[in-house]
């Protein structure tokens, strides 16, 4: 009950702040298990993409969030774990554990994921080089759809270090799923994935 009220409140707030309107560019929303990968420029990214998804798909889609930010403080933890049903991961890579393990577990359960393959936020319109995580997830679950997404204006709405956002209308552009090829080299795959996001600008 409280969680669903918080969820509705959060969706309303995000819509009032940045709109988060979905535009499906040569693609239609699909309920098949998917990994949505997108450019990362602000703390609003996760929320904007999550709000833009149709309700049935949103219910099955879990954002991936850094434990060192979202895991601290009661409110942030409540939003991340209860409201967004996020998968928390360690940003500090240690030798003993695989940072991707929680994501692989979520995919094994049949959940869809929202990930930021760049790793950290950049205050610019174009995404940086992608890190390897996306490749390893795709390799482990080749049947999961890989959907490129581009978030515009959020780098202007809430750049790194800003206290208050500037309300600008964010259009969340979903592209057609890219195919994973077993024979393809990791680097080639990652640059192709990044290219798919760039195509949506």
């Amino acid at each position, binding site marked *: 009950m409280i969680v669903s009220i918080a969820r509705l409140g959060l969706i309303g707030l995000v819509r009032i702040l940045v709109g988060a309107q979905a535009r499906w560019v040569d693609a239609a929303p699909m309920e098949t298990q998917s990994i949505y990968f997108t450019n990362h420029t602000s703390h609003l990214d996760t929320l904007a993409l999550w709000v833009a998804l149709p309700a049935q798909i949103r219910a099955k889609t879990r954002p991936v969030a850094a434990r060192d930010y979202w895991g601290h403080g009661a409110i942030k933890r409540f939003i991340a774990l209860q409201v967004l049903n996020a998968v928390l991961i360690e940003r500090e890579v240690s030798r003993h554990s695989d940072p991707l393990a929680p994501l692989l577990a979520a995919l094994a359960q049949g959940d869809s994921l929202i990930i930021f393959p760049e790793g950290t936020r950049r205050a610019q319109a174009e995404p940086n080089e992608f890190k390897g995580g996306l490749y390893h997830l795709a390799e482990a679950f080749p049947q999961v759809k890989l959907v490129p997404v581009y978030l515009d204006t959020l780098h202007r709405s809430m*750049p790194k270090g800003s*206290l208050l956002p*500037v309300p600008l209308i964010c259009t969340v552009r979903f592209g057609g799923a890219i195919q994973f090829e077993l024979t393809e080299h990791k680097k080639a795959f990652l640059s192709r994935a990044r290219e798919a996001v760039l195509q949506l600008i």
Partner: protein
Amino acid sequence: MFAQTLETLSPAHKFYWLIGGVAGLLLIASAIGWLLKSKLAKQAVPNEKSQKVLDNLVARVNAWWVMVAVFAVAFLAGKIGAILLFAAISYFALREFMTLTPTRAGDHRALSLAFFLLIPLHYYFIYIEWYALFTILIPVYAFLLMPSISVLAQDTEHFLERAAKIQWGVMICVYCISHAPALLLLEISSFDGQNALLLFYFMLIVQLSDVLQYVFGNLFGKTKVAPIVSPNKTLEGLIGGGFSTILIGAAMWWITPFTPLQSAGMAAIIVTMGFLGGLVMSAIKRSLGAKDWGNMIRGHGGMMDRMDSVSFAAPIFFHLTRYFFTP
């Protein structure tokens, strides 16, 4: 005789008549849309262009139902309702304006301030009826302070353009639009407690002028007035829509402090300013590289596509009323 009966009604009764009248108009519009739709469906060869115009007409009428409902609820909530409604309109209009305006990282604080401090403060001054600050907050204080905040970022790239565009956006979306609810703070001779009706009159005339120009334009439009700036505006639409709005304006004198003739004059000014506002805002939209301001209101485009005429007509209507009808 009927007109006299109308004039002696209480403000609340007048309001119910007005809302009833508008709902009646919308019912007729919805019925026409439905009739045209079933007529078009019977045609052997479907005409794609008329289908498109008709779909847009139906979407527009549906959006009007929602807008009139929101407007009516805000009115029933009294002064605070109307002020909150227009503050929200300003917020969404400014959001559309700034989304299309190329600002830079150095403008971030000034922009946050415009949204979260200027809009509430400006509308608060209307609420407490502090006329002097309402008039100078944005053209004086904000004009000087917003670039002062931006300059701290030491980014000189297009500095004048950025400062000018931000000021323009705030002037149009907040300052100009807010002159409509500011009608509530005027103390008009022998019109006590009826200012909400004057605001209703103003919004009715502005929007009717837009609607009737659209209707006349679609029915008889041949000569484009400004094909480059606004391809949908035609001379036939302007004349037919303009004159019918002025006639309606004259007939609505009983909700204003004006005589029928004065009311016609005011309506003529609203029509003219609204038309010019539509043209100027369309030129700005195009110079920013967009066709619509947004897609908040289905069939109409964005908030600013609906408020462009209001932003130009409101300040002039406000000041003419203030100059000639307040002691």
